[in-house]
């Protein structure tokens, strides 16, 4: 996955009899424990509200109540919230990629005196808890009129995602040989030219990782989204359930449908970009 020594399976490992059975039982139990709540979610999102109080653990939806999804779309303003979430995530991702590539390049390839302390400072940002900025930013945004605008979400999302993104970019840059750039310098190319023509194409896999990780963190963020935004037209996706809890608190089926709608993009992204996500998550931890 992240090292050249990646093996497909353990050499010469074959289990049989008792250990094999134990292995199958343990793994099945684990998978059930991890996935059952989600299966329950999708199952009950297709059932009527009355079924929630029955005695069944799972129930075959017969017929499936797709009306729940229709209700969710209509009453929870899903298209609007979905679009807002998408816009906030997209702008954040562009900011994150631009800043982390520019800083990553200056911090690994260029020579200047404050390079090391600056790098350490940015990396320290990884330790700072994002919600320690909740109160002060609320006040600052309130004073500057940023409250109830997308900038109130985009700016902190981008800032807190920069350290890990830059870490991924610099780690990747260190494995890229400098020969191409040295030749380009002799040919009289400028630094911005080099970044656009040489570095960006080489960095594609790392940028994909950074973008996917950024998407997941922006898409899934909740606390700031409900603290900084209280105008209906600007709300993002997590707020959909709050709409339902207020107005239709007994329509459990539709509430579950909303939850399902929110999680589908994440699952899709994961299945499409499994390798990028694995790389992103293991980037920091394995090297130590």
């Amino acid at each position: 996955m992240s090292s050249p020594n990646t093996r497909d399976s353990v050499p010469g490992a074959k289990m049989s009899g008792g250990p094999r059975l134990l292995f199958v039982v343990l793994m099945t139990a684990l998978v059930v424990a991890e996935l059952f709540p989600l299966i329950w979610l999708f199952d009950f999102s297709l059932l009527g509200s009355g079924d929630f109080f029955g005695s069944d653990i799972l129930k075959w939806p017969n017929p499936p109540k797709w009306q729940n999804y229709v209700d969710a779309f209509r009453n929870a303003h899903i298209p609007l919230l979905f679009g807002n979430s998408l816009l906030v995530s997209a702008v954040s991702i562009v900011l994150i990629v631009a800043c982390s590539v520019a800083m990553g390049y200056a911090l690994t390839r260029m020579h200047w005196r404050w390079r090391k302390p600056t790098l350490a400072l940015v990396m320290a940002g990884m330790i700072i808890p994002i919600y320690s900025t909740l109160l002060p930013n609320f006040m600052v945004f309130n004073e500057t009129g940023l409250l109830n605008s997308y900038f109130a979400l985009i700016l902190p999302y981008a800032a807190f995602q920069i350290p890990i993104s830059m870490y991924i970019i610099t780690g990747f840059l260190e494995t890229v040989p400098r020969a191409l750039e040295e030749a380009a310098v002799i040919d009289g190319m400028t630094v911005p030219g080099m970044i656009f023509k040489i570095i960006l194409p080489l960095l594609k896999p790392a940028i994909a990782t950074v973008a996917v990780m950024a998407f997941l963190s922006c898409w899934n963020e909740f606390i700031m989204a409900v603290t900084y935004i209280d105008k209906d037209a600007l709300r993002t996706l997590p707020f959909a359930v709050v709409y339902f809890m207020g107005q239709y608190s007994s329509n459990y089926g539709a509430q579950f449908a909303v939850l399902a709608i929110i999680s589908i993009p994440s699952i899709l992204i994961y299945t499409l970009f499994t390798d990028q996500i694995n790389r992103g998550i293991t980037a920091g931890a394995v090297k130590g």
Partner: protein
Amino acid sequence: MHNILGDRKTIFWLMAPGLLLFSLMIFVPIAVSFYYSLTNWAGVGDYGMVGFRNYADIFASDPVFWKSLLNSVLLGLGFVLVQHPFAILVAMLVQYGGRWEKLLRVCIFIPAIISTFVTTKLWTSIFDTQFGLLNRLLDQVGLTSWQQDWLGQPHWAIACIVFVCMWQGFGYAFLLYYAGVKGVPKDLYEAAMLDGASGAQLNRRIVLPLLAPVLRVNVVLAIVSAFKQMETVYLMTSGGPANSTQFLSTYLYSKAFRESLYGYGNAISVLLVVICLAVTLVLNRALKREVGEYG
């Protein structure tokens, strides 16, 4: 030749936007927070400077603050003593899965990718007293007397929170160790096999020691994340019942937004930053000494 790589103007323009964003959104807020933590501001109107009185009050006479810290420690212990050993075991076992290996990996990781918001709502429904899955399950297996108002009683509520956090984060912990296990060079396996080592011996004597550096980083990350925890608690219990499940970030939120004690909330906020930095430094030091020989 390297002159253009030392050009100050270029360096400035490459670094400035990111650093500006970074300082404005991270360092400035912490400074602002520190300023307000020295006041008795109620969120609106005038306020006065009170020096370090908020901090003194927190340390001297705020049991909820200590309870929040204790809860974070509890969650951290849950991660380190339950979640991580289990994740290491599973990471070692999954590679015996043959053609199921990939599918297993995906299934184990999926909960980690879904919004905390969704999974927490889901678990809240599972613990629900009216239609909750858990009480229904207990009913079906005949353990009706075990049924509880899971989130309504202090000790069960914190247990539920620790459990849900471990459930949601399991995929991450697993994946980190799995990458570590996969990084063990093939020749080491083959050599051990030739010497007649059993699978269990191999994993305990060779793979486990080689995981030490990975373990160190992951333990630090896990404990710090326990102090940073907010979303799951906020959505499951909001710190209740009776403040029994407060964590630092939910506590500062409720002080500021529910009780309008802005100055006090900001003092907790500053302490949260200090605690996270201190915990990271101390753990890094302590663990480096312990496993240094492998690193």
